[in-house]
């Protein structure tokens, strides 16, 4: 309800806190969003020529004269084709598990959803493990196709293949929800009017999915454009890896690398802004809403044509194998010794936990015939100092950033809702959504360049120097996760009945008490979910880690990447690949546990929690009774006997 004209304004401690919070917010927004990005933008036009004169268009001329457009074109090519392949696979997996009656759909769904717990650098290295020139599957395929190119899994094809299966997570979540929201009566009505099953799918079901598909398409396009881990690890010249390369380069090596990196990030930002504007415009037009008051649950459609039915089943299981093989292989090989992993052949006598725990020495014979011992050359994830260091650093930085993003967003959203329809609340919201318009790489690159000097704004500190980089990583992590956190937490706040706040005030609760005891407990499951999902994403995050990679900022993703290169070099890190497999399994476990806690345990309301507690209590009582410790027997003991025992 609109505030009445006669409402009183209150001044006091709360107001002071408000001013302090506002000043801090503006300080952080300017310092960690506006200034670094502006610096990047201006750096493009402040490049100096050989004579030391500023030449505003030098970089742009260089861009068109050199090979830089090829990076943009490569990224565009990847994005366009990715939209096609991801949509084909994404729509397929959703239709196969939710719309068509395919045998074993539950198992299939689990397989298709593995990308939720297995993504980023872990997934790319997993695919490499299977498909690269010495990969298990490459070797296996060569047995059937001897003339096949052993190095088939490299460059564009490998990136497209990997990302196609890595990027269907959003389809598995959002398109699935959309298809489950379809009113089955509409399908029945179409069938009743004589439409054949395929026509029903095309004319009734698909149109209702179009808005979701459009959003997914735009997001996939942006993902393709901003791809980082797959092109870097599999070798494909797209924009992001080039930005990171240029950011680490100097003028001694090539012409104005920083300004070129800035130009590339700005190009990426422009693409992102245009695409998100289109998406926003489309979303504002609204979605198809079911007008049905008694929505019927979708009934799975049996494919009537037997040939089509068999083909659909084959297709479903081929996809399942593609999704599951890397996961299964990684788990199996994480339990194999280094020799088996290196030869990529299963050794049934070589089962070990050394890739997870403990360490072993490695003895080898030199060319001079001497036997040497390399201590701890074989070590597990939790025994290897470098790996455990990466895990520790990523864990701490991700947890702090995820928590910080939640705190900022919860306070801001509470403010936004308190001052609904006011310009200042809209401004706060716009500031928090600002990073959404900018590609992650632009933010990171801008931080790296802007803060890699003594900056007056942060009290003359160099935030990229030594351990300061960790603070910079936290800030980058936080900023990048703000828009997602805002959207989720805002949705949770919308669910709070305004009358609850009135009720609490009526019962005498102050604003702070109302927030802490009434509103926060309601939104807490969503806030924890945001925290968990952000933590999950940041824990193995690659793009930012690669940009900030330094001796003090080697995160878990960078450690995993390094395991690809250092295996067995000079008799060291003999089981780097095994540790990589174990790392991936560890990530899957952490991600799976977090998703379970968020969507399994965290989604329960108080009623469900109390019901479970009651059920457990009854079970426990039954158990006590069955083993003769029940309360009934205790009561049967005469009081005087009890007294005597005392």
């Amino acid at each position: 309800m609109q505030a009445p004209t006669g409402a009183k304004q209150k001044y006091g401690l709360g107001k002071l806190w408000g001013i302090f919070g506002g000043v801090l917010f503006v300080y952080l927004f300017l310092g960690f969003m506006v200034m670094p990005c502006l610096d990047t933008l201006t750096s493009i036009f402040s490049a100096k020529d050989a004579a030391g004169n500023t030449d505003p268009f030098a970089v742009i001329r260089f861009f068109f004269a050199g090979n830089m457009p090829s990076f943009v074109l490569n990224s565009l090519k990847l994005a366009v084709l990715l939209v096609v392949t991801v949509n084909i696979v994404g729509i397929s997996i959703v239709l196969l598990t939710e719309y068509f009656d395919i045998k074993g759909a539950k198992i299939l769904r689990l397989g298709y959803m593995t990308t939720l717990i297995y993504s980023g650098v872990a997934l790319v290295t997993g695919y490499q493990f299977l498909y690269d020139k010495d990969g298990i599957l490459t070797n296996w395929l060569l047995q059937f196709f001897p003339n096949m190119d052993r190095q088939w899994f490299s460059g564009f094809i490998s990136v497209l293949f990997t990302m196609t299966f890595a990027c269907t997570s959003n389809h598995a979540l959002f398109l699935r929800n959309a298809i489950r929201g379809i009113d089955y009566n509409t399908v029945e009505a179409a069938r009743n009017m004589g439409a054949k099953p395929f026509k029903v799918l095309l004319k009734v079901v698909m149109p209702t999915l179009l808005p979701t598909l459009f959003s997914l398409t735009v997001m996939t396009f942006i993902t393709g454009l901003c791809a980082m881990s797959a092109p870097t690890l599999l070798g494909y010249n797209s924009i992001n890896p080039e930005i990171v390369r240029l950011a680490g380069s100097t003028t001694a090596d090539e012409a104005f690398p920083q300004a070129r990196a800035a130009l590339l990030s700005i190009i990426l930002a422009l693409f992102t802004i245009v695409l998100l504007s289109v998406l926003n415009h489309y979303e504002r037009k609204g979605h198809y809403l079911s007008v049905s008051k008694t929505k019927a649950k979708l009934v799975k459609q049996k494919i009537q044509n037997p040939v089509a039915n068999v083909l659909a089943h084959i297709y479903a299981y081929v996809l399942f194998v593609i999704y599951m093989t890397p996961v299964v292989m990684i788990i199996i090989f994480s339990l194999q010794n280094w020799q088996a992993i290196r030869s990529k052949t299963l050794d049934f006598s070589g089962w070990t936990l050394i890739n997870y725990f403990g360490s072993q020495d490695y003895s080898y014979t030199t060319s001079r015939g001497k036997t040497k011992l390399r201590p701890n050359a074989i070590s597990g994830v939790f025994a290897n100092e470098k790996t455990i260091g990466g895990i520790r650093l990523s864990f701490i930085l991700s947890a702090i950033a995820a928590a910080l993003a939640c705190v900022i967003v919860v306070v801001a959203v509470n403010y936004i809702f308190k001052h609904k329809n006011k310009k200042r609340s809209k401004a706060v919201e716009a500031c928090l959504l600002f990073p959404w318009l900018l590609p992650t790489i632009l933010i990171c690159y801008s931080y790296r360049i802007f803060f890699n000097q003594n900056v007056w704004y942060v009290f003359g500190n160099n935030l990229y120097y030594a351990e300061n980089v960790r603070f910079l990583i936290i800030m980058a992590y936080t900023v990048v996760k703000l828009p997602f956190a805002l959207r989720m937490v805002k949705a949770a706040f919308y669910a709070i009945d305004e009358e609850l706040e009135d009720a609490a005030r009526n019962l005498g609760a102050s604003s702070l008490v109302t927030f802490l005891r009434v509103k926060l407990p309601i939104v807490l499951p969503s806030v924890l979910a945001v925290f968990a999902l952000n933590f999950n994403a940041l824990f193995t995050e690659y793009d930012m880690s690669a940009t900030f990679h330094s001796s003090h900022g080697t995160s878990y993703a960078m450690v995993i990447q390094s395991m690809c290169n250092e295996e067995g070099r000079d008799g060291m890190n003999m089981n780097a690949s095994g540790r990589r497999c174990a790392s991936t399994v560890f990530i899957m476990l952490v991600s799976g546990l977090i998703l379970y806690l968020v969507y399994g345990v965290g989604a329960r309301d108080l009623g469900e929690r109390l019901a479970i507690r009651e059920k457990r209590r009854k079970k426990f009582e039954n158990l006590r009774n069955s083993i003769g410790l029940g309360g009934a027997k205790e009561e049967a003991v005469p009081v005087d006997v009890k007294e005597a025992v005392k």
Partner: protein
Amino acid sequence: MIKLTDIVVKFGDFEALHNINVHVKEGEFFTFLGPSGCGKTTTLRTITGFIDPVSGTVQMQNRDITHVPIEKRNIGIVFQSYALFPTMTVHDNIAFGLKIKKLKKDEIEKKVTEIAKKVDLSDEQLKKAVSQLSGGQQQRVAIARALVTEPAIICMDEPLSNLDAKLRVQLRNELKKMQKEFGITTIYVTHDQEEALTLSDRIAVFNKGYIEQIGTPNEVYNHSETEFVANFIGDINPLKDEIIRDMQLDENKHHFIRLERLRVNQNAEGEGVFKIQGVIESREYYGLYIKYYITAANQQLKVIEKNDGINIYEPGETVKVGIHPDDVMSY
């Protein structure tokens, strides 16, 4: 008990309440009735302190509380959605206000137990989450929460509007019973005329930010002071030109008659009753009574007749319709 004097509330340039004057007496069940957007909830929120009026005063027990903070007014509220805190148990919901007042733990327990007993909530139910309760039980929790702090009055903002018809009637009766038991002054907001008529000692009928009439249920129903009240409370037949002319009613006024005041055939007999010929167009069977749509004197008249099982008229049948001039309401 509660006295509103010349209350004006504005939202920006829009004046939501125009000089509202109400006096609610001690122990009374007083209802604000009116259509959506008429100002009844705004008036209630002005009393409870969520809205500050631009001018006018709110007095409670002869004390000016116009600018007293919400929590210091000692008014209990039962909200439309009940506003029960979903993350707390029933017990904690009821105890919330007492904890805020920093009462001792055993005192809180005593008060919660007492009030729970009064509103018929068991110990088992106190341990439950509010989501585990039925609509009726939730209402009782909301009432208990509002009453446990021992407020001087209790305000209810359409507390039955989210329930289905059957439960509404059932809870309506319980509500009335509880109000009588506690003897607490109650201000009740509703747009449901039947609810207002059955529950209230007195009713204030709101329209466009004004109060059209304040009176007992009988006064507002049978002696509606304005055309709006007559139209809003119950169903009504507007009388058109031919009847107005034939009955020699004042042609400069609008004339109405309630459905049950029209008499058919033998009921139309009697002294001073004006009779016209009509044809039954259709009928609706309600069990206890039957509603007829009759065309007479170039207009349609709706008539309610008690279902005696004998005098039931068929569509197309010609009937005599009687109007007693005393039953005509003119504005």
